[in-house]
C-alpha cells in the first residue's frame, strides 16, 4: 500500500510538472513582448516596459524564467523589489494582489458551491437511480430516466437566468444568490447558495441517476444476489444490505473523478449567478489577460484534480475488497 501510494504521488508530481511547464510556455512565451505591455496597463511608456521586463525577469531566457517560477512556488522569490512569500504564484497584473492569496480568498465560495451541489445530486441522483433499478421497465423507471435525460441535456447557463427570473426577480421567493460564510450564519449561507446548488445539481443528478441505475441493474444480476435471495433475505434486505453496497463502488470512483467536471460547472455557475469564487476569477482573469492569475488558477485546479484522483484510488481500494493494490 505504501509503495503504491509513493508511486502514485511521484506520478502526480510529474504530471503537475509537465502541466506547469506547458502552461508557462504557452502563457509567457507565445504572446512574447506583450506580457510586459499587459502588465503595465494603459498608460505605458517604453521605459516603463523595460523596467517591468527586468522586474518580472522577462529579459532572461524562458527556461530560467520557468525555473524561477517553480522556485517561487516552493521557496518564494523576489518580484521587482517586493518579496513574494512561498507559495508564490506571482502578482496579478490587474490589482497587484498575490495570486495565491486571491485564490485562497475565493476558495470558500467555490467549495461551498461544490459541497452543496454534491450533497443534493448524490441524494437525488442515487435515489432516482435506485428507484428506477427497482422498478426496471415499469412506469416509475421510465419517468425517472426521462427526467434524467432531459435534466442531463440542460445547460447551466440557460437554467440560471430562468431560475433567477422565476425565483428572484418576479417572485422574491429567494434572495439574490450571494455568499455568506457558513461560520457567520449557516442559514444565510444555504439561502444565498440554494439556487446555484439546485442548478449545478440538476445537471449532475441526471448523470448519477443513470449511473446508479445501470450499476444497480448489473449488481442485481450477479450470483451473490441470487445466493442471498436463496438464503431467504427479504427483498428490502437484499437491496439495502448487499446490492446497494456493491453498486456504490463505481459511483464513488466517478464522484472522485468528477472533481474536474465540478470545477468546470463552478466556472459557469459562478459566472451565471455572479458569485465571487475561483471559477469567476478564472473567467475574469482570462478576459483581462491577467496571465499570472490564469496560470495560478490552472495550476491550483490541476493540483486539486490530481490529489482527488489519488484519494479516489486509495478509497477505492479500501471499499472494494476484490481490488488488491499491487505495487
Amino acid at each position, binding site marked *: 500500500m505504501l509503495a503504491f501510494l509513493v508511486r502514485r504521488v511521484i*506520478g502526480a508530481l*510529474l*504530471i*503537475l510538472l*509537465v*502541466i506547469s511547464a506547458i*502552461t508557462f510556455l*504557452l*502563457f509567457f512565451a*507565445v*504572446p512574447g513582448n*506583450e506580457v510586459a505591455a*499587459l502588465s503595465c496597463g494603459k498608460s505605458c511608456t517604453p521605459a516603463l516596459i523595460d523596467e517591468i521586463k527586468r522586474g518580472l525577469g522577462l529579459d532572461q531566457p524562458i527556461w530560467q524564467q520557468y525555473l524561477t517560477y517553480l522556485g517561487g512556488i516552493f521557496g518564494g522569490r523576489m518580484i521587482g523589489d517586493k518579496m513574494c512569500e512561498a507559495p508564490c504564484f506571482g502578482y496579478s497584473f490587474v490589482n497587484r494582489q498575490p495570486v495565491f492569496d486571491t485564490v485562497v480568498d475565493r476558495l470558500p465560495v467555490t467549495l461551498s458551491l461544490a459541497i452543496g451541489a454534491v450533497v443534493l445530486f448524490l441524494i437525488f441522483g442515487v435515489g432516482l437511480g435506485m428507484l428506477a433499478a427497482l422498478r426496471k421497465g415499469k412506469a416509475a423507471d421510465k419517468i425517472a430516466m426521462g427526467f434524467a*435525460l*432531459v435534466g*442531463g*441535456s*440542460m*445547460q447551466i*447557463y*440557460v437554467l*440560471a*437566468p*430562468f431560475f*433567477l*427570473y422565476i425565483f428572484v*426577480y418576479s417572485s422574491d421567493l429567494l434572495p439574490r444568490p450571494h455568499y455568506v460564510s457558513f461560520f457567520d450564519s449557516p442559514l444565510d449561507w444555504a439561502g444565498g447558495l440554494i439556487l446555484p446548488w439546485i442548478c449545478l445539481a440538476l445537471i449532475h443528478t441526471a448523470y448519477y441517476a443513470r449511473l446508479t441505475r*445501470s450499476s444497480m*441493474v448489473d449488481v442485481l444480476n450477479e450470483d451473490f444476489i441470487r445466493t442471498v435471495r436463496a438464503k431467504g433475505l427479504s427483498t428490502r434486505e437484499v437491496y439495502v444490505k448487499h446490492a446497494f453496497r456493491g453498486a456504490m463502488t463505481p459511483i464513488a470512483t466517478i464522484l472522485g473523478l468528477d472533481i*474536474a*467536471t465540478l*470545477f*468546470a460547472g463552478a*466556472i*459557469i455557475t459562478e*459566472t*451565471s449567478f455572479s458569485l465571487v469564487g475561483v471559477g469567476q476569477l*478564472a*473567467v475574469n482573469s*482570462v*478576459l483581462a*489577460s491577467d496571465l499570472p492569475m*490564469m496560470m495560478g*488558477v*490552472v495550476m491550483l*485546479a*490541476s493540483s486539486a*484534480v*490530481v490529489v482527488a*484522483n489519488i484519494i479516489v484510488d486509495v478509497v477505492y481500494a479500501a471499499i472494494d475488497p476484490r481490488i488488491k493494490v499491487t505495487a
Partner: protein
Amino acid sequence: MDIGGHVADLVQAELTTADASSVPTGRSKPPVGRSPGQLAWRRFRRDKTGVISGCVVLFFFLVGLGAPLISLLYGKDPDTQYGLERPGLLSDTGIPMKPNGGIDGEFWLGLEPKLGRDVLMQLVYGIRTSLLIALVVVFIVTAIGVIIGITAGYLGGKADYFIGRVIDTLLAIPSTLFFLAFTPIALALFIAPGKEAPAWLRATALILVLSVFGWTRAARLLRGQVLSLREREFIDAARVSGASSRRIVLKELLPNLVTPILVVVTLDVPAMVTTEAALSYLGVGMVEPTPDWGRMIHTGGDYIQTVPTYLVFPGLALLIFVLAFNLLGDSVRDALDPKSHR
C-alpha cells in the same frame, strides 16, 4: 415528407460501407443472410424514439444547411438591425415595444433587445456556427483518437505507456478551464492581441483548442477495444497467415471498431456543441457579429428581467438539439450492440 428515408439512407450508407463483410441479400425466403449493419439498421428502425430523434437532429442539420434559403423565403437576414432602422419597434431603452419580445406576424420569434435584429434569423444562422465548429472538431478528434487509440492498443508496451501518461496529464486539467485559458492564446498565435480577429480565425482558434483536448475520450475507448480485439483468434489467424501489421490494422481491426467509433461520435457532437456555446457564453468563443447560440444566451441572460422571451428560443433550441442527439446516441448504441439491455 420523407425525412425518415433520408436518415435511412445515411445510416445505411455509413454502416454498409464500413462493414467489410456485407452479405448480398435479395432472396425473399428465409433464412435471409443479413450483414451486422443491416441487422443494426433493422433494430434501429423499430426503435420509435431513435427514429424521431434522428429526424429532429436531421432537421437541425437541414436548417443549418438551408439557412440562406430560409432567409430568402422569410425575407430577412441575420445582420440587419430592423429595430434601429424602423421607428416604433424598439423603445428608447432598446426594449421591443410589442409584448413577448416583439413577436408578431412579421418577426416570428421577436426582436433582439438593443440591436433590434431578427431572432429567428439569428437562431437559424447560429445553428450553422455551432454545428460547423462542432462537426469539424468531432471529425478531427475522432481521427486523432482512432489513430492514437489503435497505436496504443495494438503496439502496447512503451507507446501505450507514453500515450497513457499524456492522457492522464490532459485529464488533470479541468476541461472548461483549459478551453477558457487557452482559446485566447490560440488566437494570439494567429493575430497580435488587441487586434480585431475575423470570425473564421476565432472559429479556427476554437477548433484548435477543442481538438487538442478533445481526443482523449475516443483514444481511451478505442485503446480498450483494440486491447481486447488484439487477443482474439482472427487476429492471430491473420498474423500466422503472414498479414502485415498494416493489413491487420486496416482490414481486421478497423472494421471491428466501427461501433465504438460511432458511439464516440454520438457522444462527442452534443458535447462539442454545448462546449462551444459555453465558451461563447463566457466571452472567449465567437463574438459579435457572428450569430451564435452561446452569445445569444449570454445576451438573453442580461435581458432576463425586461425581455425574458429572448432567452427562451436559443435556450430551447439548444435543449432540443442536445436532447435529440443524446436520444439518438442511445438508440444507435442499442441498435449496434444487441447484447446491451438498458
